[in-house]
């Protein structure tokens, strides 16, 4: 309505032909928010809804029974593939598609999901390298403390357990902090893209499975990085640890 500068109560002329042949007057009785469609969110949707008889009269009065699309609700959703095959075989030329996402992941969202996974894996690899570098530095910082603990007779295994627990706590705290940041960013990202594309679509949603996936990645990674860094110290001679 904004783009065409149309208001409720205005009378507009609609025609099926670009040259305006057979234009028919229609009165605008209301405005609506189009159902968000992820396949069309970048397109400027200039749409109008009419009563079906009015639409048929406008577009194809000779074929009152012709429709562009038929939506079919099956009794059992599992029958979608079988129904598609049967209907395609009976009516060749008819495009029959289940609304569920194809299992082979060849739809645009399957492709985007794989792309985001690849980005996530690269980010995890890069951050693991940084994490290891930081842990090596941290272990180096505690070299003398570990040396003194070992001189006091505390076995290397106990020190390793301590490092493990400490790493676990830090990794858990980091993972929870990361989730809080993601949750806070969720609103910002959604509001930005909803404003940018003038849509009610939700672009980012931090769901429980995603949160669990992140924790399942981050916590073992943090613990292992801490253990690897400390392991190199524990294998060293006690005297070299206290720099004597």
């Amino acid at each position, binding site marked *: 309505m904004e783009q065409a500068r149309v208001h409720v109560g205005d009378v507009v002329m609609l025609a099926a032909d670009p040259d305006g042949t057979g234009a028919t007057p229609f009165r605008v009785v209301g405005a609506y928010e189009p159902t968000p469609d992820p396949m069309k969110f*970048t397109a400027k949707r200039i749409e109008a809804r009419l009563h079906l008889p009015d639409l048929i009269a406008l577009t194809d009065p000779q074929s009152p029974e012709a429709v*562009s699309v038929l939506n079919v609700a099956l009794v059992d959703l599992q029958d979608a593939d079988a129904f598609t095959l049967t209907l395609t075989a009976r009516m*060749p*030329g008819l495009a029959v598609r289940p609304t569920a996402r194809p299992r082979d992941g*060849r739809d645009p969202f399957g492709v985007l999901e794989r792309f985001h996974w*690849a980005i996530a894996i690269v*980010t995890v690899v890069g951050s693991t390298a*940084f994490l290891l570098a930081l842990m*090596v530095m941290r272990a180096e910082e505690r070299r003398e403390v570990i040396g003194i603990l070992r001189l006091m007779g505390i076995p290397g295994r106990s020190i390793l357990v301590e490092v493990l627990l400490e790493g676990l706590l830090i990794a858990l705290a980091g993972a929870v902090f990361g989730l809080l940041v993601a949750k806070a960013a969720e609103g910002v990202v959604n509001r930005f893209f909803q404003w940018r*594309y003038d849509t009610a679509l939700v672009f980012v949603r931090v769901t429980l499975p995603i949160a669990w996936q992140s924790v399942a990645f981050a916590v073992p990674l943090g613990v292992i990085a801490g253990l690897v860094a400390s392991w190199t110290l524990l294998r060293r001679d006690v005297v070299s640890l206290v720099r004597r």
Partner: protein
Amino acid sequence: MTSQALAWRTLTANPARGLLAVAGVAVIGALLFDMLMLSSGLLVSFRDLLDTAGYDVRVVATDGLPVLRVPIPHATALAADLSRQPEVQEVAVFRLDRVLMTMSGRWPEGVTLISVSEGAERHTWRITRGENLITGEGALERRPLVVSDRLATALSLTPGSIVRVRPTMSGVASAIPEMEFHVVGVAEFEFSMADDLTAATTRDGFEQVRAGRAPGNKDEADAVLVASRPALGSEAAVTAINRLRPDLRAYSNEQLVAQFNQNGFSYFRQISFVLSSITLGFAFLLVATLLTVSVNQRLSEMAALRALGFSRRRIAATLLWESAWLVGVGGLLALPLGGLLALELDRILRAMPGLPERLHFFVFEPRAVVRYLALLTVTGLGAAAYPVWVAARLPIAATLRREIVS
């Protein structure tokens, strides 16, 4: 010893730490480089796709991209009118339809059948096997067909094969009789979709198929492609066409790219902007943390160097060099790594249905390398700022005393 050499020695004193930091910068840098390539790659690739076709203006019946299926009537007359314009060098009529193609004993395949006016074939496909379409005497009876590699594989076609073609009817079962076509060649099509089967025939063959679906609708075109005279340019041709036929829509390649940039490409541009920003912030935080922790561990060493006569500037230069080594070496390694990563990410995204085969998301451009190096330099300098500030403000006597007492 120079600041550069001192920074190098500091880094190599703990090779594991240095290597891990460089590896981290390389991986994050590769991601940043890829995001910069993505930020304009699709657009560059789309422009390249349009430009290599040899035509710089597209004429269609309605607003929007020319793929929208609204035919232009009386296409031959229109092409003749356009050819007479002084701004126009060459005109080609492009026709497109969906058909069902069958070989005996095989399930029918949905195929995009195209036809271009004579002379435009060289811009539309390249024969890889067999021969090109023949016109004139004999072509009408033989109904020649050039098929894409994918279609040839799908239906096991070779030059000499005979296929049966029937137009598809939207929404209804079709009882239109099939027509036999003779495959004369296999070709690579410039605009074919990665998941689509494509074939081309002569105008006569095409109109015979279309007549089966819509008798009477002869001489319709889906788009008319125009090559403007180089001296006058595409904008002049667009103006001339709009003046001649105000009922049609003419778009220059630049206008199409601008539309694509506004609609189809904007999501990837936003994603690349968001990911570039996050990657940069990430690289900044991590390098800054590494350097800050490193400086904190070496406070006494720096105080000792200051006591020995090292100036604040020299200490700062040493830290800047440390940052430069980490970010520089990692950043340079990121370029080939980013190239390899881009190949894989491009392969993933090109699996998107409905994309032209030749369209790429990640396109190498010197501009992307310059932007990448500039961003990385700023990140390296920014990451070194805080540790340099800490080291420069270090109280020499108090730090040395604290070290001895501890």
